[in-house]
């Protein structure tokens, strides 16, 4: 399969590049676009991004490895990232994570065999006033209870 940005993403990348005096500064935006398009960042995708921005592959790899939100391995369709930092921990963040782990029968950092769900432990997501919470792909699910988790996973399993 040839790795190539869609026309829409190429346009978005041009807009992003116009914001900065160097094309390297658009690297983070480009990686976001690539991750949206491919789901994760493989070596080939990183090389492609490096090539179109004129950034060495080593720098791209360094950036991908440095920032936790870039996936350097495949993740499920729904990525559940449960916050377990202090405020969430005090409000039962670990109970929520363990509950999801039991419910989906996967460990932390694992993906269900059907490729639908990935469970991760996350550091503080800046949602301490609505703890416990998790991040589902791009959006937050807050003030979690076990019932809410049941409903959420039921809903997502059907789609």
């Amino acid at each position, binding site marked *: 399969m040839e790795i190539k940005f869609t026309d829409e993403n190429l346009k978005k990348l041009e807009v992003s590049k116009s914001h900065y005096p160097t094309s390297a500064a658009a690297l*983070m935006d480009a990686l976001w676009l690539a991750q949206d398009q491919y789901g994760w960042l493989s070596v080939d995708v990183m090389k492609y991004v490096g090539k179109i*921005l004129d950034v060495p592959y080593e720098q791209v790899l360094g950036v991908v490895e440095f920032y*936790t939100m870039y996936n350097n391995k495949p993740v499920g369709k729904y990525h559940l990232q449960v916050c377990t930092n202090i405020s969430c921990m*005090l409000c039962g963040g670990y109970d929520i994570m*363990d509950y999801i782990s039991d419910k989906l029968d996967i460990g932390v950092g694992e993906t269900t065999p059907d490729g639908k769900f990935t469970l991760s432990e996350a550091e503080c997501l*800046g949602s*301490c006033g609505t*703890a416990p919470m998790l991040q589902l792909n*791009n959006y937050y699910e807050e003030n979690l209870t076990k019932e809410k988790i049941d409903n959420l996973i039921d809903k997502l399993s059907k789609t």
Partner: protein
Amino acid sequence: MSFEPIILREISDLHNIEVYMKNGGYKGLKKALGMTPAGIIDEVKKSGLRGRGGACFPTGMKWSFMPQKSEKPKYLCCNGDESEPASFKDREIFEKNPHQFIEGTLIACYAMGIKTAYVYIRGEYYRWIELLQKALDDAYKKKLVGKNIMGSKFSTDIFIHRGAGAYICGEETALLNSLEGKRGMPRFKPPFPANYGLWGCPTTINNIETLANIPPIIEKGGEWFSKIGEPKHPGSLMYGLSGHINKPGIYELPSGTLLTDLINKYGGGVTGNKPIKMIIPGGSSMPPLKGDEIEGLKMDNENLKSVNSYIGTAGIVVMNEDTDVVKIIKRITKFYYHESCGQCTPCREGCGWMLKILERIDNGKGRKEDIELLNNIANNIEGNTICAFGEAAAWPVKWAIKKFMPDFERKVNESIVLPVANKVHSLRVTYQQ
């Protein structure tokens, strides 16, 4: 005198540009455009406004460090990385009053002669990036941002830069590297960003809340602002309450509000009405307080120094008597171990070492010399790193040992039976004589 919030004003739909303008929005900018840049900086100096990102550096003074004449372009970076555990205030601004922040950014750009501002927002805040982008688009349409703002000669662009999940990018020089498309590793200072910042050009970095305070200062004058709250740290603070508290959330109140008032009057008291064991006053990196230290304690940077702590980002975590201090400190240290950028040896190795020891103590395998060793490692991280991350990682450990020694000693001295049914992470621990 009742206090009226400066940023989280009680007006519904204030995020809407029409509503914001109807309620006096962008008047501060209009007034600023009629002033001289030096006049604006003087007004901000007079207000006594201090940075809200944690370091409490006087904003007016920071602005005056920017060279007035520069051959290179100048930049403003608005720091919305907000990764300090227990702080969640900037997202309230993006959500409820984004235009006041945009207006403040424009005034700052005018005062320092800046043509490009970047808003660095943490990658997880996808929804709030969308909200701010919408607000920016509206402002562009009304010619409040972009070329010839309000028909003047002043032009400035504001762009959002999305991070990707790295705590350290909240450190100002790491943020600059991240903006340049590199790994977010802090730089040596000097050279300071005001001389050598983004792409080697003069750069100022301000917190989102700091900039949101600017429009009312310009409109009502620095003197008005300097009279709110504590004189040495004036203005309002956006206190974030979380943990064992009945009504968690963000409360904008004058600086120097009593901590007990914050907890009982605004936060609705401690969950289950239990006594307080520990309080973190300003985000996880600030030295924790004991429950008996909070009576009569005012929440601002100067007053917190009397109990050896700082205001930080004003993210307050309340913990009741059931809390296991060692587990909390272990979790905080795990965070710093995960987030250390790895540039300086004391921090990279020290955080991992401290975590190992804390895990050992928590699992009932602690050794007698461990507490002293922990203290020693923390002291060897503090002050020996490029950025303040070292202090952030060392302080919670060091001060928790100092203030909660019996908790650590008990874990080291007594044999602990871990209830098999409980997961290792559960907060419940059974002690056996």
